[in-house]
């Protein structure tokens, strides 16, 4: 069973990605402000450059399949909570 989360780190922050739950809908690709997400040949999401990730969490917020988990240092909270998505 493919189920483990792959871990992409940038300092103390990390983006966890579970490709086993991905269905290739591209909602995350569409929403990523850093343009670091894309589908691979197997039509599953992959992270092209974790160095550019701002850990905004929009990929996780948009993903209907719980593919993403964002681990952040505490201080980032304020900024992230004001993230996009509201009318």
């Amino acid at each position, binding site marked *: 069973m493919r189920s483990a989360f792959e871990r992409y780190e940038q300092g103390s922050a990390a983006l966890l990605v579970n490709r086993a739950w991905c269905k290739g809908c591209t909602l995350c690709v569409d929403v990523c402000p850093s343009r670091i997400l894309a589908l691979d040949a197997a039509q599953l999401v992959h992270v092209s450059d974790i160095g550019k990730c701002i850990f905004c969490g929009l990929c996780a917020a948009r993903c*209907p399949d719980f593919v993403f988990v*964002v681990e952040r240092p505490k201080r980032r909270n304020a900024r992230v909570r004001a993230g996009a998505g509201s009318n």
Partner: protein
Amino acid sequence: MPRVGEDLRKYLRVEMLPNVWCPGCGHGNVARGIAAALDDLQLPLEQLVMVGGIGCSGRTPFYFNASAMHTTHGRALAFATGIKLAKPELTIIVTMGDGDAAAIGGNHFIHACRRNIDLTAIVYNNSTYGMTGGQHAPTAPRGTRSSTTPRGSIEPPFDMVELALGAGATYVARTTTFDFEELPRRIAEAVRHPGFAVVEVLTQCPTFYGRMNGLGDAAAMLDYERDQTASCERITKEDLVGKLPLGVFRQAECPEYVREYAALCAASRGEGGQA
């Protein structure tokens, strides 16, 4: 509310994932909204029962780390009513689709609204029957196409908010899968509401409704949700023209059935009730 991107796995029955929904299906967005609301509510999960109907949305309970009852088409609220009255300490969230809640289950829906039992009903409105292949739903706007309205629907749709209000529900809100912050907030509010609470969530079905009506992929459908709606609180009347209002339409404290029933029992205890 949890931070955006938070690890919500503890609320999930991870061994049941990936879920059954099609790529880009908004039901997964609703599921995340429920998980985020649970993170906010900090309820004991062993006292939570998720009750689902039949249809795509009805599968939601399987994916949560709580008790799950996947019932029959349209009747989830009847089962939930029995559970709640038999064991009032349980918290109950009911997930239903539009076909489920508004078509076959319309009667249970309006009676649950009327009785005001402390349950939370989440109505996933994607304007179609997804599980059976994209038939017309009673929430689908006039003119929309489906496998049973190949020439466009001639039926007026239900406005679920109006219906819930007309039936007497004491908490009524509408939100969308587009708004991933408001969605969990409404769900948490609804769970906290001491009475029957309805949250209608507009959600995308790219596989059937989107494809048959030329609305594009999941991302395009989320934008469409945004464009077709407007908050009922923040904007002027002109902004609302042609848009579906979002927000909380009623939030009233009224006698809650389970408490009223407990009082009835207490009052009757003196009688003995011959047997």
